[in-house]
């Protein structure tokens, strides 16, 4: 009857970001752009030593500087002196000992950032320098005295699975090293705190990944009830895991409460390198046993994750690492030992890929070794072992998720290879780029593969639920949630969901704050699934009530109604009414909590259904290498990603391309260089991120196989793009030069010396 209308901005369309134009034009207010009347600036004094005893702290000279309103140290923390995501082991301010370079010792509030700088310089801290525990292996066993009351071993986990007496016809072994990567978000840490007039509470605008977790930890340290700390999400310029831990939250709020004035803190780039956790550097040993055809029969492995000075999420990162030892391949038996340890290196925690990046770099290196050992190629060996739905992991957990591993490999393999380099190639297309270091004849091309499995959502029994409220009023929907928008696009997706479920056009997001239940963290590729599920659930509840209302008025059983485009239609009759008309004068509001299915902790043998669901991806990298100078240009990355259902193709492609750039960074340039606990390159001059000239052509296929467990059929897509692209690029470099390179990032000297 009525022609099919193409509705804008529903699920499945490339709806544009509501904040996109503002961001491109520089109009978007990031947290660091906020300002309040009578505002003070806050700044942090940090330890210059990786390990030292604090003999004394003298703040008297700082207090005397004009414009300085407050100086605080550990003595001033009214509540719990420590905080932490899993174990509360990290001091708000160092008290007796500093355990890493850059650890906060004191903070000041003053009328101007320059006054703050002078005040910090005036604080006298006397240190007694202590020996530095910088080698992660030394943290296992008794080689070094405990550097923290909780000891040097943060967590150990063993996995023993299947018939471990099995030996392979073919055995391949490798030692792999993964460097310390930084999340390098562009908007550095920032918060602005506004104290309540009665001094009994505080409102804090903050760039974070998880408002409610910040609120909980702040409440404990500030000794205030959680509801007295009202958090509002400030504009966030990227996160990638680095905003999961507390950084300046407690400091800013405490300075505001002490001074009874608004206080803003904002880290500079150098300080940011010391102000958040990084990706764990790790060493991984793996030994794969296989049949002579190359079928894996057993994997032995040992992981050491350097957690740095404080626990952060190291315990969970470790579990992700060891439980992903096998990669996206069938494996009947395994013996794995994993350690997350404490050192005087910078604290490490969450970063996109969360432990799986390290495992994947090793297992993919192993797959290529296995292919070579049995005389086959990288594609065949992976197809031969490809995991399928219903397979059992080395934790004993069955893979219930859609697992189209073989299809991902085949589809990636079908993507045409890039053209050969022309004989007159422009220097910008060659390794070395604008430096004009090479000519065509110096270059060798290589191809490499990486395939990965990644758990999505939190694991080990954690109920990381999400909450959303949907309000329909006069045909307009307002959505309320505490889901951190860090750039991933949930503020685009949530209204798309409402438009699809409720047939409305006008759907907006309310302020993102703690005035509603938790949404969990924007991490673990979980918000589309969890907060998407919450928004979907809330919208469905509203739709039910709308149908009831319309049914009662028109004497139709509401069960017969459906939303078709922007109308309510009677599927068993002729009644139709637009949603706008049906909801005139009405306000319907419903809140929904989405919980994923329960998971379990692992037992002593690493057995248990610890993960919720899995997503898969395949990457093929083509690189050009200058073997003599050790320089690399990544030419093309082909990828097929298991996404469940595509909800926003443009947004998804953004995740794929961005993740690939980040994984490329770890493959060939991004590394925080730490020597004896000291960070040597805390700047974007020396911590190199890929530029447009380093970014490859990305050819992506989104593989849609509806995920029945997921509320919208869609899997999280944020982490997978950055995981297996790193080993794919390194494998391509190995292929080009015919040399084993066991580490990433690959440095020029690793190639040519």
């Amino acid at each position, binding site marked *: 009857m009525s022609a099919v209308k193409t509705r804008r901005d529903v699920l499945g369309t490339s709806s544009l970001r509501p904040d996109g134009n503002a961001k491109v034009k520089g109009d978007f207010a990031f947290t660091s752009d906020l300002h309040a009347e009578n505002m003070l600036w806050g700044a942090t004094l940090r330890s210059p030593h990786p390990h030292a005893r604090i003999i004394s702290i003298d703040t008297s000279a700082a207090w005397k500087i004009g414009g300085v309103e407050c100086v605080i140290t550990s003595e001033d923390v009214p509540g719990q002196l420590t905080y932490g995501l899993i174990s509360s082991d990290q001091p708000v301010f160092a008290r007796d000992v500093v355990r890493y370079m850059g650890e906060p010792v004191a903070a000041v509030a003053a009328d101007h950032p320059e006054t703050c700088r002078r005040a910090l310089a005036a604080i006298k801290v006397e240190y007694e320098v202590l020996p530095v525990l910088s080698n992660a292996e030394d943290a296992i066993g008794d080689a070094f005295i405990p550097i923290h009351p909780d000891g040097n071993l943060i967590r150990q986990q063993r996995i023993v699975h299947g018939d471990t007496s099995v030996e392979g016809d073919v055995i391949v072994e490798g030692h792999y090293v993964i460097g310390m990567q930084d999340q390098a978000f562009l908007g550095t840490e920032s918060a602005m705190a506004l104290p309540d007039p009665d001094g009994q509470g505080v409102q804090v605008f903050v760039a974070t990944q998880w408002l409610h977790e910040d609120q909980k930890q702040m409440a404990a340290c500030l000794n205030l009830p959680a509801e007295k700390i009202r958090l509002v999400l400030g504009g966030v310029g990227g996160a990638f895991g680095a905003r999961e831990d507390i950084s300046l939250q407690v400091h800013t709020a405490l300075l505001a409460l002490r001074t009874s004035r608004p206080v803003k803190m904002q880290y500079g780039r150098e300080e940011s390198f010391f102000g958040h956790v990084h990706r764990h550097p790790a060493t991984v040993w793996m030994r794969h046993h296989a049949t002579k055809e190359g079928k894996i029969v057993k994997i032995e492995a040992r992981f050491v994750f350097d957690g740095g000075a404080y626990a952060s999420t190291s315990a969970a990162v470790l579990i992700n690492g060891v439980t992903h030892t096998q990669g996206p391949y069938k494996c009947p038996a395994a013996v794995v030992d994993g350690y997350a340890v404490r050192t005087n290196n910078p604290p490490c925690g969450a970063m996109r890929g969360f432990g799986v990046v390290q495992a994947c770099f090793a297992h993919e290196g192993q797959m290529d070794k296995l292919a070579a050992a049995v005389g086959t190629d990288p594609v065949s060996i992976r197809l031969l072992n490809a995991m399928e739905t219903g397979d059992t992991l080395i934790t004993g957990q069955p893979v219930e998720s859609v697992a189209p591993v073989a299809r991902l490999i085949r589809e990636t393999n079908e993507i045409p290879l890039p053209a050969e380099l022309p004989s007159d190639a422009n220097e910008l297309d060659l390794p070395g780029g*604008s430096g*004009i270091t090479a000519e065509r004849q110096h270059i060798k091309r290589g191809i490499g593969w990486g395939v990965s499995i990644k758990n999505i959502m939190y694991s080990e029994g954690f109920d990381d639920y999400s909450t959303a409220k949907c309000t329909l009023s006069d045909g307009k929907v307002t959505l309320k949630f505490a889901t951190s928008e860090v750039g991933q696009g949930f503020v685009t997706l949530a209204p798309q969901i409402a438009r699809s479920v409720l047939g409305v056009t006008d759907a907006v997001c309310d302020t993102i704050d703690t005035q509603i239940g938790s949404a969990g963290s924007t991490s673990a590729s979980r918000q589309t699934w969890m907060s998407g599920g919450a928004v979907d659930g809330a919208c469905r509840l509203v739709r039910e009530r709308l149908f009831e209302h319309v049914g009662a008025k028109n004497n139709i059983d509401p069960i017969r109604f459906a939303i078709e485009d922007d109308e309510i239609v009677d599927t068993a009759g002729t009644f139709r009414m637009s949603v706008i008309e049906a909801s005139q004068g009405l306000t319907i509001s419903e809140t929904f909590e989405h919980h994923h299915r329960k998971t379990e902790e692992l037992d002593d043998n690493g057995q248990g259904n610890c993960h919720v669901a899995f997503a898969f991806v395949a990457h093929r990298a083509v690189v050009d290498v200058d073997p003599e100078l050790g320089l690399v240009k990544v030419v093309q990355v082909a990828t097929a990603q298991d996404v469940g259902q595509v909800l926003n193709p443009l947004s998804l492609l953004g995740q794929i391309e961005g993740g690939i750039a980040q994984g490329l960074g770890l493959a060939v340039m991004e590394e925080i260089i730490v020597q004896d606990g000291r960070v040597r390159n805390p700047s974007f001059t*020396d911590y190199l991120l890929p*530029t447009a000239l380093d970014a490859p052509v990305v050819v992506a296929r989104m593989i849609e196989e509806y995920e029945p467990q997921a509320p919208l059929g869609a899997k999280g897509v944020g982490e997978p793009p950055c995981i297996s692209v790193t080993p794919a690029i390194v494998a391509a470099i190995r292929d080009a030069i015919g040399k084993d390179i066991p580490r990433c990032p690959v440095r020029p000297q690793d190639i040519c010396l």
Partner: protein
Amino acid sequence: MSVLIPHSITDASEMLAQNPTATILNGGTDLMVEVNFNHRRPESVVLLRNIPELREWSSDSSKGTITIGAGLPYAHIEKGEIATLVPALAQAARTVGSPQIRAAGTIGGNLGTCSPAGDTLPVLSALEALVHLQSVDGSRTVPIAEFMVGPKRNSRQANEVITAVTLPITGQRQGYSKVGVRNAMVISVASACFAVVKGEPRFAMGSVGPTILRANEAESYLASHAADINNVTDEVAKEFGRIAASESRPIDDHRSTAAYRQHAIGVLATRLAQRGI
């Protein structure tokens, strides 16, 4: 902090005479980084950006030279007429930072900072540039080799403005290469300029010593062993690279290792010796 803004070189010289501790600012691509990192807190700054004379350039066909104002941004050097007259300088200018940095940064800044990683300095060294300085006491001209005296040290007096550099227009083969761990916008790990001047090979190396180094032995070797300087054999080019590398004096730091830098400079030498214009 005071900021003085002269509009002529004469004004600038007088301001510097009156403020002998003043810091000179032009494009700000070095100084502002230092200020932002709190490595320097200048009390007094003389800004040279509004002096038109410093942004001029001219060539003298009778002498076969080009004189480039110290305040001319790299963006004007990396392409256009200057690039055809001194291609190696244009190649070096292109490697400096991002387009934004190249719109601000200048050769005067490279000379003033005098870092061993200064991108254009190997070109100035290989072409034996003359550096022009001016103060209230008059003007003087210093050969580049005498200007660069050590790591981040030069022979400019506190009251002098670097006004220009003069380079030969050789009409012969010259080229520049820079190794960094990223394909653009990167500080050099090793850089080099090869040029043929009056038929003689010149080779200067950056980031592999306390200041820019000339590979004198390698140059002599090539001069005596290359039958045709524009058609160097593989064997001779290799040996040239080996000798040049042996003349480098690099260090280990967080950007690279001494071993890699030495190796890389040898490769660059070999390749540049054989590279076309």
